[in-house]
Structure formats: C-alpha cells, structure tokens
C-alpha cells in the first residue's frame, strides 16, 4: 500500500481551533473535547493537534518532532542532525498507551539550533532549517520531521483525534493557541506522517476538503524550490502561504485574496485602485488560487487565520468569548467548550477570520525581502 508521498490522497475532515489573544495558556483538554464532538467527520485514520506556546523553556530552539520507522533510521537521521545543528535536548515524546492507537513509530523530539557555519551564503536561518527538513523528509526513508517551529509543536498520528490527544498526553501541555484535526482519508492506510496538522517551521495547517487545483499549485510551488513530498493538499497550502507571506512578503489579506480570489465579476465592481491590485493578484498568482472546497486554519506563533474557499463549499463557524476565539467545522464543537459565546457567526466564503496575539500585526514577521532576489530565478530552498 502506498502512503502519503507516494500517492496523492484526498481527505475529508473536521477542524477546530481555540486561541487566547492575550497569550494566556490552557491545557489541551478543551480542544480534544471540541474535536471529539465531530467524531463522525473523521474515520480513525488520522488525528492531530498543533499547540503554540508549549515550550517556553526552549523558546529560541527549533523543536523538531520526528517519526522514525526504526532505530537504524533514527541513527542515520541523528547523524545528519548533529552535522547541521547543535542539539540541546533529545527525548522521546511522552505518550499514554491506548488500545485504539496501534503501529506506533518511534516518536522523538529535538530542541536544536542551526550551526551557522553550515549555512550557505545568502541562506537565511529559516531557509536552512526548511532545506534540512526537506532533505530528511524526501531523502531519508523511514524518518519524517512533522514539527519544526519554535515554542510550538504538532502532535499527530493514526487514530481518531480524541485518542491521539490522549495518546500524546495533551492535557499536560499548556498553549495559548490550539488547533485540531480529524481526518477522513479516502484511500490510505493512514501513515503517521500523513496525519494533520501539516507543519513547517512555525506554520501549521489543519484543513478540511479536497482541492482541485492541487497540481497547478504544486507545479508552481516547485518552481520556487518546494518539494511536495507528501502530495497532500495541506502540504501544498502550507507552502503557498509560506511562499506568499514569508518569501514574497505579500500582506496576509492579499495572500488571502490570492488563494480565495474574489470572482472577476466582483473585482469589476471595485474602485480603480482596488481593481488594479486585485487584478494584479489574480493575474500574477493565478496558479496559487486554491480551487475546490476547503476550510483551513493556518496557525503561526502570532495567531491563526481561518479561511473558507470562495464558494464556501465547506462549513466553518466562528465564535468569540472574551479574549478567546473559537473556530470549528461545526458549531456544536464550539458549544461543547463554550456554551454561551459573546457572539458566533458563519464566515463567508473567502472571508478570513484572523486572530492575532495582542500587539502582533501579522501572522508572519518576515525578514526584509531582497527585491532583486526573484529577478534571477534562483530561489533556492
């Protein structure tokens, strides 16, 4: 049986997210309860969580979470890790044994810092880390980096999400932002690495739906050095946002207007300045339109953004109570943990719900982009 990376696997899903604007942390219990309500939206072949703010003691380290098929691969990977990073802590990720969770791989985490001498000229630190991850994930058979940000982590595996949450003892972590995913893949045995959230550096994405534009998106991304090794929509969507926000320095709202572009008919009704911008966004980044049904929560250390496709082919509900913002595929998933929100609403197709930590202006704080960089078509990751 082929797993993610060997074949493209579409999936239906449930998503949920909770965040506190003030950065106050809560345990994973709530998010587990929330995603559990939507049990029937997944089929036991994938569940996962992303949590921000969980490693305050290592907040300047990259927290790499890895699956290994066996010890030999682990050794091979650690050899490479050691070559490019200084490892300040390596440990197994604590788990609880649960009957429902089977075929557990070796699950390790490493708190690391890049070795500057190994970095290529012009290579930024983040690029260096990404390149390393790409290399492990595409070249080292049996090893998979599934989380790589700072002071955050993703936890995922094959099983229903509520079981995965218990398995990873998420009740023992405290985070200011949680997202969760229950997966309903249609033709996979379920591979731990293929579960969601998908994560790259600080980015995490949980995603519901299957996109029709996948290969158009992928082939565009590949021009910019991304390797879509998992062949999942979630991976491609992550890279799209990484490319637009981090590498191109496109403002978040414009990035949203690229992936969930307004229809031309709507653009034609805009004022001239807007029209010019929106036309340019669609014309230049036409290959990054995400077509087909999706609802996503894109998480970063600064907050998260929930978004629907422009036809709203997937459901998405949001609610707010005090400093907490809630997002879920179904309202009941919110009500389960917040009985009486101050307000609740269904965002429109293409209309983002953005929740940022107080004082933050964007999901991503990017380094100044070298404007000439792309003129030479030599974007290397």
């Amino acid at each position, binding site marked *: 049986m082929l797993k993610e990376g060997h074949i493209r696997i579409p999936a239906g899903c449930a998503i949920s997210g909770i965040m506190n604007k003030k950065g106050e942390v809560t345990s994973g219990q709530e998010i587990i309860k929330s995603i559990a309500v939507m049990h029937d939206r997944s089929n036991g072949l994938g569940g996962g969580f992303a949590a921000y703010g969980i490693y305050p003691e290592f907040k300047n380290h990259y927290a790499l979470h890895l699956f290994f098929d066996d010890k030999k691969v682990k050794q091979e990977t650690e050899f490479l890790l050691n070559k490019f990073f200084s490892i300040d802590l390596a440990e197994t990720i604590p788990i609880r044994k649960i009957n429902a969770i089977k075929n557990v791989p070796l699950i390790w985490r490493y708190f690391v810092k890049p070795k500057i001498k190994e970095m290529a000229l012009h290579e930024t630190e983040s690029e260096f880390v990404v390149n390393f991850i790409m290399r492990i994930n595409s070249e080292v058979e049996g090893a998979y980096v599934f989380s790589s940000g700072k002071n955050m982590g993703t936890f995922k595996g094959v099983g229903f999400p509520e079981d995965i949450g218990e398995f990873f003892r998420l009740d023992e972590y405290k985070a200011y932002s949680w997202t969760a995913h229950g997966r309903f893949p249609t033709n996979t045995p379920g591979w731990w690495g293929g579960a969601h959230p998908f994560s790259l550096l600080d980015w995490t994405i949980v995603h519901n739906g299957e996109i029709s534009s996948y290969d158009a998106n992928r*082939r565009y991304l590949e021009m910019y050095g991304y390797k879509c090794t998992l062949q999942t929509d979630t991976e491609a969507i992550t890279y799209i946002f990484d490319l637009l926000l981090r590498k191109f320095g496109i403002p978040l709202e414009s990035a949203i207007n690229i992936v969930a572009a307004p229809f031309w008919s709507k653009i034609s009704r805009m004022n001239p300045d807007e029209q010019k911008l929106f036309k340019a966004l669609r014309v*230049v980044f*036409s290959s990054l339109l995400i077509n087909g049904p999706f609802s996503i929560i894109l998480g970063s250390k600064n907050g998260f953004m929930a978004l629907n496709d422009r036809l709203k082919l997937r459901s998405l509900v949001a609610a707010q109570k005090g400093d907490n913002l809630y997002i879920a595929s179904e309202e009941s998933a919110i009500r389960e943990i917040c009985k009486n929100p101050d307000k609740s609403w269904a965002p429109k197709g293409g209309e983002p719900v953005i929740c940022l930590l107080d004082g933050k202006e964007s999901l991503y704080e990017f380094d100044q982009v070298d404007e000439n960089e792309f003129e030479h078509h030599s974007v290397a990751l």
Partner: protein
Amino acid sequence: MSINCLTPAFLIERDKDRCIDCQVCVRQCANEAHRWDEEEQRVFSEDANCVNCHRCVVMCPTKALHIKKFPLEFRYNANWTQEAMRAIYLQAETGGVLLTGMGNDRPYPIYWDHMLLNASQVTNPSIDPLREPMELKTYLGRKPDFLKIKNGKLLEDIPPQLELELPIMFSAMSFGSISLNAHKSLAAAAKKAGTYWNTGEGGLHKDLVEHGDHTIVQVASGRFGVDADYLKTAAAIEIKIGQGAKPGIGGHLPGEKVGEEVSQTRMIPLGTDAISPAPHHDIYSIEDLRQLIYSLKEATEYQKPIFVKIAAVHNVAAIASGIVRAGADVVAIDGFRGGTGAAPLRTRDSVGIPIEFALAAVDTRLREEGIRNKVSLVVGGSIRNSSDIVKAVALGADAVYIATSALISLGCHMCQKCYTGKCNWGIATQDPQLTKRLNPEIGAERAANLLKAWAHEIEELLGGMGINALESLRGNRLMLRGIGLTDRELNILGIKAAGE
C-alpha cells in the same frame, strides 16, 4: 501532348430521381465540375474537376449529389500506394514541388486522443457551471515574479496583459490567403466572444481597424502592412518566426491574388507577388529577436504584449526558453498539424513535432528554469474541440490558437485546395464571385457560436473536475491520464497512465 496518367480523384454521383436540373451545382462550382448541357437540357458532371469541397452537395436543394472516391483500383501495394504514385505522375507531368493546403493529413498519432480527463466524485464536489460562477477569463502577458504591495496598494503596475474571456483565440491567417469576409467574420466573432483574432502577415484592412482592440497584428518576415498605425491599432503584436505547417519555409502570395484591397492592405503594388522570406532577415540569432521585440515595445511605448510565434520543432523547449529570456510576453507554439493556405507537401507532412509534446516539453522546461510564470504560453496546430483545449491547458498552456476549426466553422470542408484561389466556400479566395459566399454576419455568428459552445463545454469539463476558474487547471497535469501511450511518451507529457 502525351498521356496524362492522372485519373480523377473523385466521382460525382447524381441521383436522377432527385435531380431537378435546377443548376444550382453548376452555378456554385468554381471548378466547373458540373455543367449544363443546352442540347440535352440537363446537368452533367465533370468528375476530373471535382475537388470534393462539398459545396454542391450542401447547396443541392434535393440532396441529389454524392461524391465518392473515384473507384479506380490500383494493384494492392503496401509500399507503392495510389497516393505515392499519383504524386509521381503529377511531378512527372509538371516538374513541380508538390503544393498542398490545410494541415498535415498523415496518420500520425494524435496525443490529445490519448489523454483522458479527471472528474470529481465524492471527495470534492463537481461544480454545475450553469448556475455556479465559472471563470474562463485569461490574461496573457508577462508576469512579474511577485508584487509589491503596501497599505493595500499596488506599488508597481504589472506589464500589459491581454484580457480573454475564454482561452481561445483565432490564429494568424493573412488577408490574401483568406478573404476579407473571412477576416471580418473572425474579427467580429472575436469581439463578440471577448477574445482576439490575428491578422497574419497580410496587414489590417481599413474596415477592420474598428476591431483593433480585439486584433493581434503580425509582424512577419515580409513586414506586409506594417507601419506605426498598424502597431498602435492592435491589442498585441505577434512576431512570426514560423508556423507549424511549414517550419523554416517562407510564404508566397501570388500576384493574381493581390487585388485592389489586398494591395492597399499589404501596402504593395497591385498584382505583384507578395513574398515572405523564410527567416526574418534581421533575426539570425536569439539576440536579434530581443532587438526586434524591444523595437516593437519601444514603438508602442510598452503598452502592448509582444507575442513570438514559433513552429514546434525538435528543440522547441530550449528555443522557447530563449524567447522568454529575450523578453517576449507571450510565446505561441504551432504544432506540426497546423494548417496553411499553401505549403510544400513534403514539408507539411514531415517537418516538426506534435504540439502536445512541444507544449509539455516547453512548460516543463520553463518550470525547471523557474520562468514559466513570466510568460504566457499559447499553443495551436489543430485544436479540434473543447477537450483538446482543456487538455492543452492542463498540460500547461494559457490559451490556444485555433484556425482550421475556425475556418471549418465558416464552412470550410477541408478539400485542401486553398492555394488554387477557387475556394468554393469564399474563404481562401479573393475572387469576388466567391468571396461573397461568405456573409460575414453569418460567419461571425458561426465562429462566435463555436466559441460559445466550446466555452460551455470547457465549463462543463472544468465543473466536472471541481474547478471554477481556468487558472486552476493550468499545468494541472494531475487532471490528465494517458491511455495507450508508452512510458517514454507519458514521461514527455508529464502525466500518469490511466489507472495510476
């Protein structure tokens, strides 16, 4: 006078029970394949003159006419076929290069027919294009790598773009090779459908200046009709390097077709031969192309996209890459099945490569070089229907050029005798008795209908794939699967086999 070994190609059968001797056939056949016999008071056929253009068959009010292949058996010979022998008879007779019209008619594989499209089932919804928004809008032109945006404003304009309501344009056919009414039909249809037509290298007739905003004007080696007004009137300019039917060959419009209107439009004296050299004599190398591209951009103040059209030849991917780097906004590639008014038979049938491969190779190559998004890619060369177009876009094309199918929509029956100037359908002729057979109102309606119908079909196919904007199909090769192809062919096309 010696024996002429050429026997008639076609046999005209007249059903006597149906023929009412109305002589419509006689009046309609420019080849004089029908004749009225005053003495017998009835119509007779001259089979030898028949080119099988079907004009008489279509016009016959009682459908009394049938045309068959002339039933003359040659001794079976898999090698020396009738066709091979006829060619020799003709050349023995005349000592001439075999001339033919329209596209390659050899039974080469048609790769479009070896690709199948995807459709959504369950995991994502197909879309009903009749009710849900469906966008075929396409912009052709050079794209920057990224945009500078500040405070919700675009800081730099993007280069000029052609806006197409659907990814289909009419490709270049000159006034001279086709009639003014054919040009009028295509221009009006392009305007109606929100797309573009292409003058070819014969200039822009004064009556069509009003359609300038839907016109791509061509600058070819003969530079016919090219002046500053011509360039400024157009929506875009195309430098023609080559065409699929005759890569590496120039063109030649015989003087007898250079009447008053053609002469004015081409800006050449009445009755002179209009010769297009094989190459542009100011382009002997890629850097010269850049020079021409920029001279045109300068002349039009960088307001118009510059197309460069090449024939699909063996190293087309590398050439296309060079063209992108030379500054073209749009690269147009014409496959070896592309049509022509007149081409040497052996060139037409043996030079070039299929557009499917050329497109796949160019798209892949440009992506490998990271420059695919800089340009738009337009392909042509026997696009026969809307699924060819969908497949082309999935392989990586931004839009397609159609010409043969456009002419068929105007009535062409593919008799392949365009070069005789006796086109009974009023298309490939300048004879006023014949050109009026193409009423441009009807022509425009028919060509626009074709585009409309194809647009609907494209929308249906897109909807089936769960895609509501054409751009999400572009280069989306996952939507294609090959059938009956070798691994090598699948590899070149960059697609998987059906069932994978």
